[in-house]
């Protein structure tokens, strides 16, 4: 072995060692700053972690693009959902007067709100785009109370890290980190384009997460759970999406 290749070998070895040490430090920092998504295990973990960490560092406080009212889509598309079930039909027949949104978990004051109560809270409207992971999109005006207002009312604990939310459809539940949960554009939408939110689009209550793809905006929301750990929920991957093979983080 010549001197040159020995030098090369040593340099490569040092570089590899520095790389491994760097990765270990990066992993520790990422964990500390909450940059590792709940579905980071498995073969796609590295890519998911890079995407989530990079986007969190770049977009923690950024606002989703908003559009002028004349950009609102004339013919928005309502994606299909699983059959809504007997309980939903019963509530629909009653004009959703009995619909309740339960707020529990790491909160000082667990609560249950009717749609009328939610409507009496300060309302916001945002003209934003909703994109499906399939590739299609539309723009609509979404109205409702900011999720952060409801979390404040319930007294979310400082150690809260995620908000888990459930649809009346048993297999549809998601979670978002606190950056998205207290984000100023994240709303519990009851209105769309100036009217009531139609059932096809998630009415009577849809949690709109503006900076993520449509599947994070769960339709027919009935429960919000504040937690510091998503492991005990479902299979521990953060939401139903990774259990069905889809990424937990859908900002891309």
């Amino acid at each position: 072995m010549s001197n040159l290749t020995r030098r090369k070998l040593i340099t490569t070895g040092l570089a590899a060692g520095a790389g491994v040490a760097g990765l270990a430090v990066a992993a520790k920092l990422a964990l500390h700053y909450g940059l590792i998504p709940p579905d980071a295990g498995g073969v796609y973990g590295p890519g998911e972690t890079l995407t989530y960490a990079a986007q969190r560092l770049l977009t923690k406080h950024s606002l989703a693009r908003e559009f002028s009212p004349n950009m609102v889509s004339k013919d928005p598309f309502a994606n299909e959902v699983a059959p809504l079930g007997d309980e939903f039909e019963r509530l629909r027949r009653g004009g959703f007067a009995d619909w309740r949104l339960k707020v529990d978990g790491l909160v000082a004051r667990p609560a249950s709100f009717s749609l009328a109560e939610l409507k009496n809270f300060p309302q916001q409207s945002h003209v934003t785009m909703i994109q499906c992971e399939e590739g299609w999109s539309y723009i609509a005006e979404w109205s409702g109370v900011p999720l952060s207002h409801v979390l404040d009312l319930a007294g979310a604990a400082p150690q809260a890290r995620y908000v888990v939310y459930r649809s009346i459809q048993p297999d549809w539940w998601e979670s978002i980190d606190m950056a998205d949960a207290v984000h100023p554009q994240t709303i519990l939408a009851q209105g769309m384009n100036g009217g009531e939110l139609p059932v096809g689009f998630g009415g009577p209550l849809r949690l709109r997460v503006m900076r993520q793809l449509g599947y994070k905006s769960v339709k027919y929301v009935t429960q919000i759970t504040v937690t510091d750990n998503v492991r005990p929920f479902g299979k521990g991957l953060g939401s139903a999406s990774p259990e069905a093979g889809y990424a937990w983080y859908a900002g891309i």
Partner: protein
Amino acid sequence: MPGASTQYEACRYTLQNEREVDTNPQMAASLRSRHTLLVRITHWIMTLSFLALLVTGLEIVVSHPRFYWGEVGNVNTPVLFKIPIPASRNLVPTGYGYVMPDQNGWSRYLHFQSAWLLVLVGLLYVGVGVFDGHFRKNVFPARADVSPSNLANSIVAHLKFTRPGAEEAWSYNVLQRLAYLAVIFVLFPLTIWTGLAMSPSFVSAFPWAVNILGGQQSARTLHFVLTLALVLFLLVHVLMVILAGFWNRVRAMVTGRASEPLERA
């Protein structure tokens, strides 16, 4: 191997890695250094990443094989164009009576993971290439070579499928250099940009990234068209490798060494 040494001396091009000339005289007579280790490793990692991106990108397109221009597009809005294939979702009107299996979950996971790999390895390749003179020596064409007459000659030679001259086994020709430059510094950056412009979270921080493209659906359409351009490059690239001597060129990109062109001639 008669004439090999003459050929060696006649070659106008210097060895890329003179330090690595083989000490075995027999080997030196038949094989010479061609590609550096970094070029070879990054070439194949990027090849694998690109193929993964291609397959998974196609899977994602299958869930909605319609393309639009502007900000929004869905089955209720007019298309710019559509691909005449069945879709993997039953609410997309395709004219086919059946729905393909949904592969979007793992396709999206693998698409982004491969994109990260390609971007990181690509940055390593470009960074080291700028630093060690790879681009200056091997990729940027000489000023004299980009003259219209020289370009015309090279294009004619390519269109006639003329076998490359001996010196081309050791140096890229001018069209090759321009094609590689276009892929490395134009097509891939634009594809990455249009990909990021589709991310609702990314554009919340950098809205200009999608606004100057004309909208999110425009970004998606451009991403698809750029992919077609990259596929065209891939096909021509592989065709040229086959015409120039497939095994010798592939060996050069795997082992770093190529045999003297006279051996084949």
